[in-house]
């Protein structure tokens, strides 16, 4: 199968697998009674496919047929002198019938229930065996158990590349790793990204990712094939934000440690052009319209401080005025016919503005408006070029808002124990609740055509036909 699945086929493949899973969710299918033990054929979802595995329940622990599970997982089995060796993910697991010890890469692990032989079949503790192989196991709210041979672990965040692939990022003390993951299979490969790279800016067609490094250089990575990142600009100025043009041909960026300048980089010819240099500092959240002419961004004004340095330090002669330090939305449209063309301030309100998203034609910008009053609901609002602010959604307190294909997806407060996700039509403002999620969900990640993704307790899940498939562990 080609790496790039069409959305339809992705959903179909998983729908088949998951569809059967829900039918077998009750676990037990057929049971065979022997003299001592009851062997049950139970439904599991292994590597995304519904399978039946022989299991035994003993002392409240599930034992699974070693042969069945190993075959489905893709673990290689070898047997010599009564010792069975299983290999997967670079791990070697050794076990022996009657023994309560699992040897994992040479280290001994105690089992609750000894390895059992029943009717010539070896049974081993399901969870311990899966963990020993470096595989992962998850039981969802419907009782289905997902077992995956190789899921990425410790994913800190993801972003969709296109409808079929996402980039998963792991952070650790020494640096980070970015993986390109196929949503349908969970297969992943490490991307060639410098250790000191900024977050990746992915072009809207999903073909390229760009990043800056500590030396200010800009690199571009071809996501259509395994390749090395190419430095497209060795300009050393600080670039706090990078954004692709709609056609993926050029990059726009904020320049300077205070993000004062909007500039354009043509990667092909390594040429930088300044678009706007108006000495206004702390621009952020830069977005560029489809025609490359309208730039929407926020400006944050630092507070005003009055301090008299001639007074003794102990006098603490300092006063701070934080009035007007809330971010405001600005727009600048390139138009050579306008003399002394300036950026236009669209908002002036004292609310915090988060998750800002400009319309692709630059005609408006929407954002989550957070009131200074912590008890007030945060709402999704829209501001037009005429500076009029209109509410898009205010039914519930909004925690996060994402936009895809004319629709907003907002993560909101729920009923105390759950969070809700609403889908809001940008044009009609019609809102419908589409998910109820655990209150430990921290983020939703959307992309046109792709399944809904959520981060929960450091794990990534994709929604497929009413189920949440774990795609990281």
């Amino acid at each position, binding site marked *: 199968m080609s790496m790039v699945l069409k959305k339809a086929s992705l959903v179909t493949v998983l729908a088949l697998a998951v569809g059967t899973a829900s039918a077998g969710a009750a676990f037990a299918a057929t049971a065979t009674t022997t003299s001592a033990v009851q062997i049950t054929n139970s439904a599991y979802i292994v590597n995304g496919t519904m399978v039946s595995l022989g299991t035994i329940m003993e002392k409240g622990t599930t034992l699974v047929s070693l042969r069945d599970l190993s075959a489905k997982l893709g673990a290689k089995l070898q047997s010599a002198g009564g010792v069975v060796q299983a290999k997967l993910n670079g791990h070697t697991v050794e076990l022996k019938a009657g023994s309560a010890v699992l040897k994992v890469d040479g280290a001994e692990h105690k089992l609750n229930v000894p390895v059992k032989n029943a009717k010539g079949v070896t049974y081993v503790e399901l969870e311990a065996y899966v963990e020993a192989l470096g595989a992962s196991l998850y039981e969802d709210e419907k009782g289905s158990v997902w077992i995956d041979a190789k899921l990425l672990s410790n994913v800190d965040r993801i972003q969709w590349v296109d409808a079929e692939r996402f980039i998963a990022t792991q952070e650790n003390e020494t640096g980070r790793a970015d993986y390109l993951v196929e949503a349908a299979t969970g297969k992943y490969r490490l991307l060639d990204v410098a250790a000191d790279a900024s977050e990746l800016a992915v072009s809207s067609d999903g073909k390229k990712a760009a990043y800056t490094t500590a030396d200010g250089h800009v690199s571009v990575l071809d996501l259509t094939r395994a390749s090395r990142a190419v430095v497209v600009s060795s300009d050393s100025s600080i670039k706090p934000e990078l954004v692709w043009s709609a056609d993926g041909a050029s990059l726009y960026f904020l320049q300077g440690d205070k993000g004062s300048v909007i500039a354009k980089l043509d990667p092909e010819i390594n040429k930088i052009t300044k678009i706007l240099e108006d000495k206004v500092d702390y621009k952020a959240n830069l977005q560029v319209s489809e025609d490359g002419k309208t730039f929407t961004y926020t400006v944050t004004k630092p507070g005003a401080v009055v301090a008299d340095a001639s007074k003794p330090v102990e006098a603490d002669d300092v006063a*701070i005025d934080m009035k007007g330090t809330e971010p405001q939305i600005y727009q600048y449209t390139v138009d050579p016919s306008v003399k002394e063309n300036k950026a236009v301030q669209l908002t002036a309100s004292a609310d915090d503005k988060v998750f800002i998203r400009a319309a692709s034609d630059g005609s408006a910008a929407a954002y989550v408006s957070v009131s*200074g009053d912590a008890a007030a609901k945060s709402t999704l609002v829209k501001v037009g070029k005429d500076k009029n602010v209109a509410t898009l959604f205010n039914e519930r307190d909004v925690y996060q808002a994402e936009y895809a294909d004319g629709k907003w997806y907002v993560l909101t407060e729920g009923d105390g124990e759950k969070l809700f996700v609403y889908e809001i039509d940008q044009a009609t403002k019609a809102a419908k609740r589409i998910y109820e999620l655990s209150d430990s969900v921290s983020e939703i990640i959307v992309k046109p055509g792709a399944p809904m993704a959520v981060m929960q307790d450091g794990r990534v899940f994709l929604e497929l036909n009413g189920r949440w498939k774990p795609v990281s562990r």
Partner: protein
Amino acid sequence: MKWFKSLSVAALAIALVSTSVSAVGAASSLKGKIVINGSSALLPLTLQAANEFKKLHPKVKISASAAGSITGPQSVRKGIADIGAVDWDASQDVPGFKKFEGQVAHKVAIIPFAAVVNKNVKVEDLTTKQLQDIFSGKVTNWKDVGGDDADIIVVNRAFGSGTRVNFQMKALQGTEFISKGNNYKEVKSSGDMKTAVETTPNSIGYMDLVYVTSNMKALKINKVAPTEANVVNGTYKVWGYGYYMTKGEPDGATKEFIEYIQSAKFQNGSLKKLKFIPISAIK
């Protein structure tokens, strides 16, 4: 009701622990207001972190300002700021400033500093002793340190500057500056220092490494070039930590924000992008 049940009691216990940890970090729960004032050098870093943090915790309002390092711990002591951003550890005595009692210092970044000279100066390298002699006024002519026969113009930052405190502590090992004379000039900001050194022949000054331009020359100190690599490998000694000061141990949103700016994600990503060095780079 939880979304996912775990199979075993052990796994359930882990799940519950991780839930309670992430509940602090969950998009929804955290509320509060954080006021940050102090170092100008740290302000871009603070505002970048605030912009990212608000996407995780939209209900936390963060306001930031800058008017020089010393105003950071002063604002905290006065109770008008939750965080004082300062280019030295203000919980300790430093040249010119007594420690701020009861304040806790949180490292947020490493800031390298460079001694810089006007482009007409032929000297490439100075020892600590030579720097001490120049900045204290004992050596006044470039010919005494291997350069041309020309008066040295010393450009200094005004009292209260974090860069000045660091340069005095790390490059001059605590010796005093001259404070007057025809060949002495005092400037109020990094921007003024840049202009002064770029435009004044025979001048010497100092600044954050990130502000060094191609229109001036950064000196080697004790034969070591001021580069990020030399800071990290321990050979270049003229650097300091940027700190966030709090009144006692922080809690709530303030604690969470400090943890965010110290997180691997921010330190290895945005912080490096803004040309600071992560605190973990030096053990």
